[in-house]
């Protein structure tokens, strides 16, 4: 964090270099930005959208601008139970609700009212490089893998495999 105005002053403006922000504050900023028709670039945390979106990736969330079909889109929405901001994929859409689920999780987020969907992920960056993010055919492929739990199975198999390997390494180091 860098202070711009000298600290002796009562009036201060501070530029955040590593901005730490609560989920609630992030939600408010995203709502405000999207409601004015702008997009917001932000860092995401967590593994629930693995492998499409990974921990520490930077996504750009854009307003939906009259888009009526959200199917297959990775959307930013307010979870009705937790009131938290979540980015997951729409796997089914009905008249005024959507069924949303993370790519690497087995459970759905529930029935989410369409009004809770704020915007969609339109760009993805990983390690300072822009990544291809499924908006065309990739959107359909990601939707298929999400619905068939292929990503979830691979993710949990990978986690389990790495745990077994770690345990084996720990055991062998104990024997030495």
């Amino acid at each position, binding site marked *: 964090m860098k202070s711009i105005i000298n600290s002796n*002053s*009562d*009036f201060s*403006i501070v530029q955040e270099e590593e901005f730490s922000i609560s989920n609630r504050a992030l939600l*408010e900023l995203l709502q*405000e*930005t999207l409601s004015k028709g702008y997009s*917001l*670039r932000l860092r995401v945390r967590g593994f629930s959208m693995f492998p499409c979106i990974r921990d520490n990736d930077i996504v750009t969330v854009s307003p939906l601008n009259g888009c009526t079909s959200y199917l297959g889109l990775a959307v930013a929405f307010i979870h009705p139970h937790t009131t938290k901001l979540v980015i997951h994929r729409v796997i089914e859409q009905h008249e005024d609700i959507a069924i949303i689920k993370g790519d690497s999780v087995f459970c759905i987020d529930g029935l989410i009212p369409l009004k809770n969907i704020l915007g969609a992920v339109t760009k993805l960056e990983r390690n300072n490089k822009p990544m291809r993010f499924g908006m065309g055919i990739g959107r359909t492929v990601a939707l298929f893998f999400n619905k068939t739990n292929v990503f979830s199975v691979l993710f949990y198999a990978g986690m389990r495999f790495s745990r077994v390997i770690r345990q084996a390494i720990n055991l062998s180091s104990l024997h030495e």
Partner: protein
Amino acid sequence: MTSIEKDTKIISSMELKVDLNSVYLPVRDLIAKDIQGELIIIPIASGLGDLESEIFRLNETGRAIWDKFDGKRTLKEIAKDLSLDFKGCPEDIEKDITEITEELLKRRMLIEVNNKL
């Protein structure tokens, strides 16, 4: 120094000159949101706000100044208003306002509307 560098230097020094008799207004392309008593400002460039590179936080008193940039009052008038609110010495407040205005102008978050006097 090339002529372009010279021109840029002249323009930037002109932009940063703060006049207490001038009127300033926040630019339209930014998001200013009150979060937990502080004002968070995200500049917008090409329709995009960027939480990863440019985000500013104004404390309560900084916010009090920000709220008074209404495009109608001069900095001097704002300082007078604030000296009543904060019971401070008007000269000190004018100095603080000049500093913060300079910083906000430098970051293109404010524009000068006109010269009132």
